[in-house]
């Protein structure tokens, strides 16, 4: 495992490269892991590290990294935007390609990371396969669940704190600043739109039955250009902290992702 910074000095990104363990004399391509955002990133860190280790032991060159303004990467969250984070995923793909020489790169994204990965995969043919783990199907619904956008008034989500205009406005979402610009980008997230343009082999894996499952199923049906599997594998949510599972990782989901990606060769 090699932790390092990469990318231009004004946008240095923190990454951790897990080299492929030699499996029968050859590596099986590369994988870039795309983190979720906010508290979900903090809680998922442990599980995504385990995923990276499992992939590298299965012969896959693996890079996980922090987007600009998150984790150990340069910048502040208030200077970040989703377009920039998609660019960061592309920079990570380039970095892994340069490091290892491997051309076939899988993208694995969790929550917001899945949406960003899908968007990059829709434009970049080098990405194959693609794994979307508990994606945000609709940004609007996500913001409603967070109490930001208007929606179900019976929602129990606490009202988010409104941030002052002189610090970028927007909201504090579970302690993380979500600027007005970023909130607007979130609102426009629509996974099903990106799915239609994807040609990579795709696994959509859900660790819990979600109310938006039907909408996701409709989106998956539009993926005429790709082989796609949608699986519900009930397991712990990597991105949620619950006192009873605070140190636990979703072993079933991680194992399924590793098995699926190695079978995709």
């Amino acid at each position: 495992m090699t932790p390092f910074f990469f990318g231009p000095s004004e946008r240095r990104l923190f990454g951790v490269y897990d080299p492929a363990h030699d499996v029968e004399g050859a590596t099986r391509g590369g994988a870039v892991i795309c983190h979720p955002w906010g508290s979900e990133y903090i809680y998922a860190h442990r599980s995504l590290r385990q995923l990276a280790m499992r992939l590298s032991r299965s012969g896959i060159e693996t890079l996980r990294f922090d987007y600009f303004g998150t984790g150990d990467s340069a910048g502040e969250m208030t200077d970040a935007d989703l377009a920039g984070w998609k660019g960061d995923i592309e920079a990570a793909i380039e970095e892994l390609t340069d490091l290892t020489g491997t051309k076939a790169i899988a993208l694995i994204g969790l929550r917001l990371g899945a949406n960003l990965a899908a968007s990059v995969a829709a434009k970049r043919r080098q990405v194959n396969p693609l794994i979307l783990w508990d994606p945000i199907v609709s940004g609007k619904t996500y913001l409603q669940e967070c109490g930001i956008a208007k929606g179900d008034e019976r929602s129990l989500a606490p009202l988010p704190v409104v941030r002052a205009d002189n610090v970028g406005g927007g909201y504090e979402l579970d302690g993380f600043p979500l600027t007005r610009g970023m909130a607007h980008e979130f609102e426009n997230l629509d996974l099903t739109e990106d799915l239609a343009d994807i040609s990579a082999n795709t696994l959509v894996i859900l660790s819990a039955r979600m109310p938006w499952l039907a909408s996701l199923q409709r989106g998956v049906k539009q993926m005429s250009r790709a082989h796609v599997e949608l699986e519900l594998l009930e397991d712990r949510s990597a991105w949620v902290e619950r006192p009873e599972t605070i140190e636990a990782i979703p072993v079933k989901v991680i194992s399924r992702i590793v098995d699926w990606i190695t079978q995709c060769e």
Partner: protein
Amino acid sequence: MRITEQVVLLGHSKSLVGIFTRPVGGKETLRDFGIVILNTGIIHRVGHHRMYVTLSRALAELEYPTVRFDFSGIGDSDKPSHDLPPLESAMSEINEVLDWLQTTKKVGQFVLIGLCMGADHAVLYAATDPRVVGLVLIDPTMPPTLRYFRDYLQRRLLNARSWINFAFGGTSRVRLMLIERVRGALFKDWQPTSPTWSHPKLRSQIGQIYEASVKRGVKFLMVLTGGWHQTTYAEQLVEAFPNVNFSGLLRSEFLRHSDHIFRSEISRAQLQKLILEWLGENYANGGIENGS
């Protein structure tokens, strides 16, 4: 002041992942003490809401070289290669990080910063290493005092759920404490099964740990929050350990509106301001000397 961040692999086996943050440009010097930020529980080195990244950068801008790292088995650091119990392992790893700063960056004195379990690690370690000259302890383990019980009860008495919990045998902290005290009074040889403050030796042992640092002149910034169930007021440490003479060494603050993990940006900014202010008060003249 421009700063730079560098990934460092620390410890004997170079398996502890850390980020070293320091100023660049201008005079290529470092202060004669460094700052080490410890993990909060199992949250990796960026801290809750990335608070330690922001803090490290602010510290580096004021020319304080700062390391935040993951203990073995946490964040990106490998599992420990030894069989030490977790606490001994943490103590040994703090020592290794301080050694690294001393040998590679010529930093001879240290301030440790920790929240919750990180604060406990910091205070335990400081008692053993004379290189530690200051501690920023945020919501450490804190023994209850009479005033704590009064404040706590006052708060709970106004809460209907507390009454239901108490009456129906829930996990009310006060109820459990009362049961322990009654058992302790009735049965001479009774010992609590878990290390609680009712344990006869625990309070005095923790007091001795604080005293060891106080005798060396270690300075303390104690930050307690309204969200930490073990504390209700700023002076709780002093009242909990009346035999330890903190005089002139302790600044204690109670952030009533902050929760334990500093969820709001305002409370994080408040905490950071306190830390920078305290460092300025105590170490502003902590000479700048040759560093690398």
